[in-house]
């Protein structure tokens, strides 16, 4: 978090985390496509030739002044593939809130669990933990046939009982609800700490 009281600006960093191909970039692309130009910056994507995120995607959103303060949200995604572990770690630097985008397909359950453990490991290195960190879960790809039940996903992934959302990011379902929830969770957390 970076606060500049001279300009009354509050900058918060939100990172979309999750296994490869779970829809993190799709979340950002949808947000970018729907927001008014005055509220968003460019969406920057560092991708491979195959359209996979190699380092991160980034965009900034603003909502104007609220009680004289100007909150700005910097949204990042991390690359999901296992071998980009160190890129994931560096993008978490200074993070204020996390959206964990899980893939609802049964064969991706292990990848979800593994990535969540990787996230906890990275947070631990900064003396943080998912237990008391502001984060939410999005169970994405709910439109696909044969997806895992929400109960099962909750049992395997949401062991701290954080807010969770069902998503179909390609259609935009659940995308804004998820973003709004993580922003709220972060702001409440910040209020407590200021």
């Amino acid at each position, binding site marked *: *978090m*970076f606060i500049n009281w*001279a300009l009354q600006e509050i900058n918060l960093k939100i990172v979309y985390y999750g296994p490869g191909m779970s829809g993190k970039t799709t979340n950002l692309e949808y947000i970018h496509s729907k927001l008014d130009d005055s509220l968003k910056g460019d969406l920057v994507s560092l991708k491979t030739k195959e359209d996979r995120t190699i380092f991160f995607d980034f965009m900034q959103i603003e*909502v*104007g002044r609220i009680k004289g303060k100007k909150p700005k949200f910097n949204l990042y995604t991390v690359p999901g593939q296992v071998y980009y572990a160190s890129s994931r770690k560096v993008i978490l630097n200074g993070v204020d809130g996390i959206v964990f985008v899980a893939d609802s397909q049964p064969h991706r359950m292990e990848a979800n669990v593994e990535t969540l453990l990787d996230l906890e490991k990275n947070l631990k290195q900064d003396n943080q*933990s998912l237990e008391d960190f502001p984060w939410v879960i999005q169970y994405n790809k709910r439109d696909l046939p044969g997806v895992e039940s929400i109960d099962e996903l909750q049992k395997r992934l949401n062991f701290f009982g954080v807010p969770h959302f069902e998503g179909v990011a390609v259609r935009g379902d659940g995308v804004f609800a998820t973003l709004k929830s993580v922003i709220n969770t972060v702001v409440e*957390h910040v209020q407590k700490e200021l």
Partner: protein
Amino acid sequence: MVKTKKMKDGSRQVILNGKQYDLITKILSELANKTKASAILFADMSGQLISQRGNTDDMNTTVLSALAASDFAATSEMAKLVGEEAKFKLLFHEGDKRNVYLSNVGDDFFLVVVFDVSVTLGLIRIYTKKAIEDLDKTLSEEADEGDEEEQKLDSDFSSLLGDALDDSFK
């Protein structure tokens, strides 16, 4: 000093007051004047832009800061791989028309200087080094806590923010 506190949950907060912001901006202005750099950015290692000077109208400095921070992050991983124990202190990108000089300011901040190839690197180096010393000093000076009053978020801030978000997401 600039409040860079580690919170109990481990997250990091950087809080600048008006006076510190003015001092930082003054240092950047001086650097811009002396070097004729096209643009100068001061940002924190998580990629948040703090202040900028120079001709930045045609430049997306928010994105530039985010990319520069990851540049630092990537090269510090590179440093480990090649057996350099400290982080690399400065990064230099050379172009046909413009160069970019990046240098860290303490552990938590960095400076980006964008300049035309007609400006010599030596000049940039000398004045940037001076600016970094000044910034270091400003960042470590005691701040008066006089205007603490305004430095919090009202209790209805969350709900107003929620409404604003709903409006934006129509």
